[in-house]
């Protein structure tokens, strides 16, 4: 026992834990939220391929949220892991190992390994530096995949991806029913894990890293190890998302590694609001839906309207949609209580 133990012996187990417990508990809103994909299955049965792509992108955004929203690592190259996962699953399926779950595991392993290795490049430097290093890594990977045409098919894409039925039983059908259910189940499972993670001490420590990375070592936190860990986890998630895309499309194209994909992902996450998990899901959904809707209405100039939408969001709802919702919620609560406190709880510093 260290000498200072005596000081802490004035333990007080009776501290009020209500707020902490509440933060970790599932709320009604969350249950309702997860009913949406179920409802969508019945409401939009004609667009299931699109819906599964939303689910995949949401998972991808979730993976970025883990590293950006919780650990504060800005990345403009997250597509690297997405792409690795996509190719891993695609190549396996091309060479006869088309069992979907096997593809997921392989993609997770490969992307995770790459994330682990590249995370060591990110330990020093400021945001801009990290942005550029992640970007550089992913661009080099892109060029590599582009050059290795024999392996990857280059810009023409990887063909001959043949998938076995899911669990040996469910074929991927033209309507995309199997694919959709598959994607949503994987998304939910991984979300659930991520949710546990961020409410556990690890998640708390990561928020600490994001808010004040200088102070953390002085509390005995091995910051580097934490960054490596979460970056690897993020890469695994991204890899799984990539594999899902391959499996629902039966095709891999070079653009899984593209800069545009990374950049768009960042936009989606920021749009939804970083650091709340749900922001990632909402951001991906809203962005893709808006994109699809606008492109449908105005195939040539939809970009203008999408851009306008983003600009307006920033002008009128800081911290993305989740930030806006939180402020709305706080306002409603204040109004209903007459007055009083209750600002946004997770108001991390800018």
């Amino acid at each position, binding site marked *: 026992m260290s000498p200072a133990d005596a000081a802490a012996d004035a333990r007080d187990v009776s501290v009020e834990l209500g707020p902490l417990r509440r933060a970790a508990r599932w709320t009604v809103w969350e249950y309702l939220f997860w009913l949406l994909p179920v409802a969508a299955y019945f409401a939009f049965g004609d667009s299931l391929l699109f819906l599964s792509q939303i689910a995949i992108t949401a998972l991808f955004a979730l993976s970025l949220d883990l590293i950006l929203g919780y650990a504060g690592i800005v990345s403009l190259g997250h597509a690297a892991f997405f792409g690795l996962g996509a190719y891993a699953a695609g190549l396996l399926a091309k060479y006869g190992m088309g069992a979907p779950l096997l593809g997921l595991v392989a993609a997770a392993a490969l992307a995770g390994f790459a994330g682990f290795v590249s995370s060591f490049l990110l330990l020093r430097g400021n*945001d801009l530096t990290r942005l*550029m290093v992640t970007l550089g890594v992913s661009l*080099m990977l892109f060029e590599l995949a582009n050059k290795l045409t024999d392996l990857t098919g280059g810009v023409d894409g990887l063909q001959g991806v043949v998938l076995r039925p899911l669990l040996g039983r469910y074929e991927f059908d033209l309507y995309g029913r199997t694919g959709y259910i598959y994607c949503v189940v994987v998304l939910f499972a991984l979300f659930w894990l991520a949710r546990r993670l961020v409410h556990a001490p690890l998640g708390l420590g990561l928020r600490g890293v994001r808010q004040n990375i200088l102070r953390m070592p002085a509390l005995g936190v091995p910051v580097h190890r934490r960054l490596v860990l979460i970056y690897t986890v993020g890469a695994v998630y991204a890899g799984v998302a990539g594999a899902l895309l391959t499996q629902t499309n039966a095709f891999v194209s070079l653009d899984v590694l593209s800069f545009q994909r990374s950049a768009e992902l960042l936009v989606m996450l920021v749009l939804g609001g970083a650091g709340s998990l749900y922001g990632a899901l909402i951001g991906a959904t809203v962005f893709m839906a808006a994109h699809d809707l606008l492109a449908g209405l105005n195939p040539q100039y939809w970009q203008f309207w999408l851009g306008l939408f*983003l600009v307006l969001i*920033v002008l009128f709802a800081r911290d993305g949609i989740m930030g806006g919702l939180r402020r709305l919620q706080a306002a409603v609560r204040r109004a209903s209580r007459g007055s009083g406190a209750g600002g946004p709880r997770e108001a991390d510093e*800018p």
Partner: protein
Amino acid sequence: MTIFFDGIASGVLLFLISVGLSVTLGLMNFINLAHGAFAMFGGYACVVLLNRYGVPFLAALPLAALLSALLGAVLERVLYRRLYRASDLDQVLFSIGLVFMSMAGANYFFGPTQQPLALPAFLQGQIHLPGLDAGVYRLFLIAVGLAIVLLLQWLVVRTRFGAQLRASVDNQRMARGVGIDVDRVFSLTFALGSGLAGLGGALGVEMLGLDPGFPVKYIVYFLIVVAVGGSGSIKGSLIAALILGVCDVAGKYYVPQAGAFVIYAVMIVMLLLRPQGLYGRRAAK
């Protein structure tokens, strides 16, 4: 020797199209990913002036810069100003939104195709010296680049305006407290950054082409230069651009198989060696 010269010219071109960002991102700390949109605006302004109004090239360049600066000043007044205090991520989202709008706008007004640009005869061709074939336009770029560096270096480092700008970025409230007109300083600086972007865009049309995809096509290069040079350092940007240009050109000439990798590899290595950039004086926010 010719390769070295080409590398320098290529570096100066990189510098010219990025220096505006070095001002808005580096000095003002605004993550202005819409930099390329201002550059594109300058490019279109130059092309329109040349082709539609027959303005001579040497006059069209400063005019394009001026128009871009005006556009920058207006947008600063109505939009950017509200976002100085927003988080980095909000600034990213906002400026990407502007990029989308500008791309669609350019598509609407000018169509999706490349814009033609004919240089005046005296800027075409090569000068042949012993051991060196120097493109005239490349020489011209180098001259303009040097002029800009000297001008900016003087403005930012030697004048009180530069100090006032940095003070305003560091702490707006206090800058007002000591009597600095922060709004004016920001407007002027943003206009300067936009003007430089416009000038870079106009100068770049000849070598980079011009179509509505311009703002995203070269965004990576802008960012590389600023990151490697160090936020807020004009000198750093120039040196970074030169190193990148020379490495890129030499790499492509001598090891063409690795052509695409050279610039990224150089960037990553330099950033690992100097995480704050060559002349980085502080973390970007």
